[in-house]
């Protein structure tokens, strides 16, 4: 997969490296700010409450 992406990036080495960096940042941002906040409430690791009763 990574080899395939690398082969399809245009331009000389420095330009390609820059594009790789951008791709990595974009994927990281997508994970950190969209995907993780979305799946996190469904995980059981963040329960800090006990059921309150009146």
């Amino acid at each position, binding site marked *: 997969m990574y080899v395939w992406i690398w*082969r399809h990036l245009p331009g000389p080495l420095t330009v390609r490296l820059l594009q790789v960096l951008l791709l990595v940042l974009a994927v990281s941002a997508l994970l950190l700010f969209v995907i993780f906040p979305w799946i996190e409430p469904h995980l059981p*690791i*963040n*329960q*800090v*409450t*006990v059921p*309150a*009763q009146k």
Partner: protein
Amino acid sequence: MPKHSMVAEPPAASPPSARASMTTGDKVRLVLRGIGQTLITLGLVVLLFVVYEVWITNLFARAENDRIAHKLEQQFAKGDDPILTLPGGGDSTIPIGTGIANIYLPRLGSDYHWTIVEGDDQESLAKGPGHYPQTALPGQRGNFGVAGHRVGKGEPFLNLDKLKSGDAVIIETESDWYVYRVLGSPVGKDPQNLTVQVKDTAGGTHTVPGREIVDPSAGRVLLPIPNDTNSADKPAEALMTMTTCHPKFTAAQRMIVHAKLTGTVAPLMQDGKRVEKMPPAIRELYSEVKS
């Protein structure tokens, strides 16, 4: 360098016909490499998730809590108390997710401050420690329940286990500075196995520990008299209960710290207006934990 060897292999060097003439060995290698890369990628994603949990969510929570704290400060300055008791005797309805009071824990440092928000749902708790809406309000008789995250989301209760018996838990509302103290006698000790007697209105006493580790379903710790399921008993004292997860990074159990109201200090006033500054009597509490 391996990177260069990859680059030195231009697309033209692998003509389309190469794929057709792949041997079985080539195919196996291709599949194995694909599996390997997928696993490495998943590993990196999991690592990134850890970074998100313990670091990024803290940034979000702190920023959000600071915003709420600023809003509450403006409310206080206007004399607008979100937890005002209504003339009829009931409590005003507090919008979920808004600030109600500030909490200071001298044991955890002079920079420890959070604004407690109303609500014990995930969304509210992502903004800071949250007040269980069904429980008493600060200063009231009964049990003022507050939940907070242990890891991530600002981790307000990360070091809740560092509190010792007798340690001050300061709650600042518009009308008062309340000083709760972690239960347990003698003071200055690990409160895990220490208890005190808490009175009810009929003169009865109930044993309440300073700190306890309970099952996630143990809602009884939030009762007006903690762990006393007899609803006929009415609390004669103002208690506070803080809940967080235990052990760290898991949700297997809950760590509970109980405290009792021991003092009330009036806010500083200037020209009939409330001043956003710690009264000297509250400031003194910070010198207690240094010794």
